[in-house]
């Protein structure tokens, strides 16, 4: 695959601490994942976008599970497939609405991001207070970990752990929540 070496380079740089490379990795991964999920969930672009977001959080929180001795795309798509199977299993348990307005042949070849069905911001508010606060300060208010530590009175490693746990909880919430 043409993207393999490039994507792998970005992820490895990100793992080493380069946030810009990690951001670039997630952005490119999002494009590939969008194509992957839209191909498999035709007529449900919002569901596909939900899965893109869910998988991005999974790739991020579990990025240490990548072993550089193996292909990156195999790792990424294994996680994507896992999230898709989990989604389909959840979908089986809920009442499905009739698919009105399903139009075939209307696929957007550019795969532009459509709106996701679920609101991640609302899910963030359901996190335990400490995790929510750490994510709010560092991730949304753009403060450094040190500033967040000073403001809350927690240690810096406490803040980092809270963010990591919070994102893992977020992914679980994304999986549990039943879109209507």
């Amino acid at each position, binding site marked *: 695959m043409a993207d393999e070496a490039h994507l792998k380079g970005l992820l490895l740089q*990100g793992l080493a601490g380069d946030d810009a490379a990690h951001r670039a990795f997630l952005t490119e991964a999002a494009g590939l994942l969008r194509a992957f999920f839209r191909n498999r969930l035709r007529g449900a672009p919002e569901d596909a976008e939900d899965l893109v977001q869910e998988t991005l959080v999974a790739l991020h929180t579990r990025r240490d599970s990548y072993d550089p001795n193996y292909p990156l795309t195999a790792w990424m798509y294994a996680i994507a497939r896992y999230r898709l199977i989990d989604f389909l299993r959840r979908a089986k348990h809920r009442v499905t609405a009739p698919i009105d307005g399903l139009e075939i042949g209307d696929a957007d070849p550019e795969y532009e991001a459509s709106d996701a069905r679920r609101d991640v911001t609302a899910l963030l508010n359901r996190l335990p207070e400490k995790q929510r606060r750490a994510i709010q300060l560092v991730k949304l208010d753009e403060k450094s970990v040190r500033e967040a530590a000073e403001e809350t009175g927690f240690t810096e490693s406490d803040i980092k752990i809270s963010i990591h746990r919070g994102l893992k909880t977020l992914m679980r919430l994304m999986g549990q929540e039943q879109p209507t």
Partner: protein
Amino acid sequence: MKTDHLIDVLARGAGPAEKPRWGGKLAITVIAGLLVAALLVAIGLGVRPDIGAARMPVMMKAMFAALAAAVVLPLAVQLMQPGRPLGWRIGAVLAFLAICAGAVFIALMGEMPERRWEAWMGGAVPWCVVLIPILATPTSALLLWLMRAFAPTRLALLGAAIGAFSGGVGAMAYAMYCPTDSVAFVVTWYVLGIAVSAALGAVVGARVLRW
């Protein structure tokens, strides 16, 4: 939240990722699981009374169980992380099973025809099929918890591998109690006990390993 915004959120201040160190944790898990199983045997079943004289067969049986666990371990480790090929690791398990079947056959052919059935069945109810999975649970519970943290994606298969590995560990402890030493009996029923443990692991793993 738009996906681009989510990416910003994830990447901001991400910093370096910690390297996963699972080797040490795995070793501690196995030792802890083996100790608990040995304790269960010592308290619940009682060590076989002739353990002093039967040191050799007990050692051999424990080694066989350890070998079974060792054969499954590469598969479990590979399944722990997403998208890693299984390849020869499945082949190793199948080859081990084929060797076991061959060993049972050769051992039975060495017996007198009228004694074969007893040598195979041990002349009593083979409780090891029940006891080995029970003795496997301390190890498998710890392993399920440990491996869940590593984003497994083939849950039933990993659960089965964990169950089989833990079954091998449980059988090591069980060897201290097991009163039957016939090769055909031990190979057949230990492998079946481990297989039961693997089946239970597949069922439990498919639920418990979800993340």
